[in-house]
């Protein structure tokens, strides 16, 4: 095991524990704080995956802005765990069965390798990842040439410009919508 792998597993275990605590805590505020810990752990994982910029964004936007919004609303509505909102045992069993099934279905990807990805893209077992996955290599080259931010910024303002603009429109709509919904009288 390399250092990177060890650190990854530390973050992974922290994230899983945080997630479990998040959904089992009776008090929503506690849930929110556990969720923050999950998001922080994930930010670490992102850094390990060489997505440093996304890791930073994760901390700023999610752990910072969005979670503060959640906490703010919980406190505003005074939902500090006076009564339990957890469902009964049958619901738990059902949920664990269903959620577990989904997890197990997808966790089969644990031994997924880049070569398998190359195989699925090219449809040939002959070729290996280095030949097929040129896009990944280009990303590496772009990171080396322009830095982590530049490598994302370039496609974001180029190829993905129109989706980017539409996202801006979406945010504007959300802002207006949130104001309209939350205001008592307009």
């Amino acid at each position: 095991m390399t250092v990177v792998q060890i650190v990854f597993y530390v973050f992974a275990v922290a994230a899983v524990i945080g997630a479990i605590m998040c959904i089992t805590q009776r008090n929503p505020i506690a849930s929110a704080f556990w969720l923050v810990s999950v998001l922080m752990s994930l930010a670490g994982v992102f850094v390990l995956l060489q997505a440093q910029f996304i890791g930073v964004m994760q901390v700023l936007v999610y752990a910072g802005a969005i979670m503060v919004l959640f906490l703010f609303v919980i406190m505003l509505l005074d939902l500090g765990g006076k009564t339990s909102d957890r469902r009964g045992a049958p619901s738990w069993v059902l949920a664990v069965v269903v959620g577990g099934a989904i997890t197990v279905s997808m966790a089969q990807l644990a031994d997924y390798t880049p070569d398998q990805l190359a195989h699925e893209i090219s449809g040939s077992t002959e070729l290996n990842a280095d030949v097929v996955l040129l896009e990944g290599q280009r990303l590496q080259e772009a990171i080396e040439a322009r830095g982590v931010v530049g490598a994302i910024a370039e496609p974001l303002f180029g190829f993905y410009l129109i989706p980017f603009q539409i996202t801006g429109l979406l945010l504007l709509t959300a802002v207006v919508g949130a104001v309209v919904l939350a205001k008592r009288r307009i």
Partner: protein
Amino acid sequence: MLLGPSLALSAVLFGIGVIGVLVRRNAIVIFMCVELMLNAVNLSFVALSQYHGVGGRVMVFFVMTVAAAEAAVGLAIMIAVFRHLESVDLKNINLLHG
């Protein structure tokens, strides 16, 4: 080399999010569980983008934006609902009952 473990972690977090949505009744906690699921998906995107190109990372940005928008509107709805019902417990919110 972290591809497989990352995807597995993503799957586990997603499953926990699903269980959370199913067992909680507090609408705001459910929102948080949804955020958890979105993050799990983000992790998949980032892990795969190392081999599949920068598109995945750009997509993470869009997911974050949608999550932010969703949280803003969703929480605004919750405030409106709370003002109306004095509660955000889903067992009280059943206007869609046929």
